[in-house]
């Protein structure tokens, strides 16, 4: 009886004893058994939406910039036939020099422990807490990017310049214990790309991450002695887009193993060549703090974000289900439509199981709950001057307060906006002239870039959608427009210099005004 009434109170979100006389005693006095009351409470508890329906998936994403090759996801039937993910307890990964004595042996003595029972989730707080757990939970233990041998090798950390916490923890991967002696390195958690090790060693969850993922992957392939064919194969799986004009990824593959590895190494911390994007046009790792208020997701605005269901869809898709997408007749892991729908499981990282809808809901709620840390750059006379310059220079038109984005999509150079898009999407019909490669030549490209929010610039970087500029000062430096410029952030592997064009605002301000404007931007 005690358990039932406690459970009932939780379901009714009643924690204080003062509500007992009001809600519970009368029901019990009226002869209602706790089981019945729990049943009623179940009916009024949080309703989890079903997100992967054929109807919803039809037009949730924007079309590809080459619309014939817009993504076609797996069907509702296929999706819900995938098994739901089981969440085991995870353990931190240490740099070998910092691993507590006996830790590795101790890990191997641990039993598997399932740490998430979604049937116990009742309140919004329950879901947020579960979401935080899921945010850090790896969906791959097959070594999709890196494996045990890599993280237990000191060279891995040195060659990738891997950020660590003061305790020597590498926070981008975890040990997953799936049974006694079954200790696997877990990859591909949300936290892998969306965790930032700050200068003081603290972790900022949800921020633009500084996981040097592409450098790490290059190390993994090199240290494993991957063949040229192997390197080409996995690179094609990740980024192949033969339908893109000029097929730049096909050309990269043809350039051979060393050039491909160099392309991985060229991607700086703060950017990441996620599947469907590119290491030739790598996207900045998105800042998730404040994502609740964004109307589009992905730098190209691929996913509409109209409600929590859209966020759940985005998480489900981006946790590797997009490997099963067809782009016309093209599938990046070489599937045919017959093989995909044969009923046989597909063993590719992230594609053989799925989050439950409740897990996705929890993840979305957690992401929505992320809040920025206290900004050390408080308003000053200088930043107030910068605030006026921000308005005078017209920055407010796109980076409109209080979100510091107008939440619109701007077309890239070379993209002609289809007439119907004006009614379907939020369009700001002018290109700011930044590099168009990501949105015109990748599987995720839509022809647009979303207008980014400037909130939290002080803890972010590198900047621009392709992470080509390391500092805000570089953004306002006209030297960046010259062909002999050496980008301070991402620089393609096959050039020594490259102009960083586009978004050419505030370049003619004098030094003092630039200083003031940057002071303001860092105060946001």
């Amino acid at each position, binding site marked *: 009886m005690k358990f039932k009434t406690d459970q009932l109170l939780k379901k009714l979100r009643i924690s204080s004893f003062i509500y007992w006389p009001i809600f519970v005693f009368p029901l019990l006095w009226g002869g209602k058994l706790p089981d019945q009351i729990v049943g009623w409470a179940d009916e009024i508890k949080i309703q989890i939406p079903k997100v992967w329906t054929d109807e919803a998936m039809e037009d949730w994403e924007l079309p590809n910039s080459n619309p014939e090759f817009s993504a076609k996801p797996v069907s509702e039937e296929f999706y819900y036939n995938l098994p739901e993910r089981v969440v085991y307890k995870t353990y931190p990964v240490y740099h070998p020099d910092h691993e507590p004595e006996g830790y590795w042996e101790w890990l191997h003595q641990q039993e598997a422990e399932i740490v998430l029972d979604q049937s116990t989730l009742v309140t919004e707080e329950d879901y947020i807490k579960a979401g935080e757990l899921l945010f850090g939970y790896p969906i791959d233990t097959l070594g999709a990017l890196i494996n045990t041998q890599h993280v237990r090798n000191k060279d891995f950390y040195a060659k990738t310049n891997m950020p660590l916490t003061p305790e020597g923890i590498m926070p981008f991967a975890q040990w997953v214990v799936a049974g006694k002696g079954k200790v696997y390195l877990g990859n591909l958690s949300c936290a892998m790309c969306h965790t930032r090790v700050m200068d003081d060693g603290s972790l900022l969850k949800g921020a633009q991450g500084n996981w040097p993922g592409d450098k790490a992957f290059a190390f993994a392939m090199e240290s494993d002695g991957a063949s040229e064919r192997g390197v080409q194969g996995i690179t094609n799986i990740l980024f192949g887009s033969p339908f893109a004009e000029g097929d730049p990824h096909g050309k990269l593959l043809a350039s051979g193993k060393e050039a491909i590895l160099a392309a991985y190494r060229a991607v700086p911390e703060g950017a990441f060549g996620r599947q469907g994007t590119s290491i030739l046009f790598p996207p900045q790792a998105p800042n998730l703090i404040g994502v609740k208020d964004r109307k589009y997701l992905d730098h190209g605005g691929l996913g509409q974000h109209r409600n929590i269901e859209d966020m759940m869809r985005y998480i489900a898709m981006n946790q590797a289900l997009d490997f099963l997408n067809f782009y016309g007749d093209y599938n990046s892991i070489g599937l045919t439509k017959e093989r995909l729908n044969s009923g046989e499981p597909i063993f590719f990282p992230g594609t053989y199981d799925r989050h439950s809808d409740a897990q996705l809901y929890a993840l979305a709620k957690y992401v929505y709950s992320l809040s920025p840390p206290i900004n050390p750059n408080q308003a000053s006379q200088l930043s107030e001057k910068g605030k*006026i310059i*921000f*308005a*005078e*220079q*017209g920055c*407010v*038109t796109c980076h*409109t*307060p209080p979100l510091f984005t107008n939440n619109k999509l701007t077309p890239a150079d070379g993209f002609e906006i289809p007439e119907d898009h*004006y009614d379907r999407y939020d*369009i*700001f*019909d*002018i290109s*700011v002239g930044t590099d168009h490669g990501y949105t015109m030549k990748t599987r995720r490209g839509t022809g647009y870039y979303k207008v980014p929010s400037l909130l939290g610039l002080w803890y972010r970087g590198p900047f621009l959608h392709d992470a080509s500029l390391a500092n805000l000062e570089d953004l306002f430096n006209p030297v960046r427009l010259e062909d002999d410029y050496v980008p301070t952030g991402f620089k393609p592997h096959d050039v020594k210099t490259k102009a960083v064009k586009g978004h*050419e*605002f505030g370049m003619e301000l004098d030094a003092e005004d630039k200083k003031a404007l940057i002071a303001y931007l860092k105060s946001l």
Partner: protein
Amino acid sequence: MNVNFLISLVFLIQFQAFCQKEKGSDPIVFEIKNAGITVEGTISDWEYEISFDPKRLDESSIKGVAYPVSMDTGIKLRDKHLQGRQYFHVDKFPEILITSKKITTKGKGSYMGVFDLTIKEVKKEIEIPFMLTSKGNTKKLIGDFTINRLDYGIGESSIVLGDEVKVKVNINF
């Protein structure tokens, strides 16, 4: 964006009739509030046709056509955006038209005109007070008016960009 159209027409004329069709010498100036700051822009390419007899105001007329493709706010990309379909849509609506319907005197070079202003095929009647003066062989018309840009489908409602646009016109001829 900012659509400010200010037509300030100052006519100082002494009791002589005249008729003239010219390109505007001074640009049309417009002003709009953006994030609390007054942004000024100009339209430099425009023409006017004036047929004016202070003794026969009912037979007098003032017409103007402005080409928003010549808009300049000091930021080229912003100008391009203003010329795009969400603001002036200059490809489809290259002209802004203003035509007098009635002119009445307010005494000593001062007049009140009722005009039809057409932007993006939206025609609205507005009243514009103006001055028409003459000094030697030079005549001067100054006037200004304020419109609500949303009435003409110029941009959308915004929390930072004002709706009202002040337009100033200054003609020396």
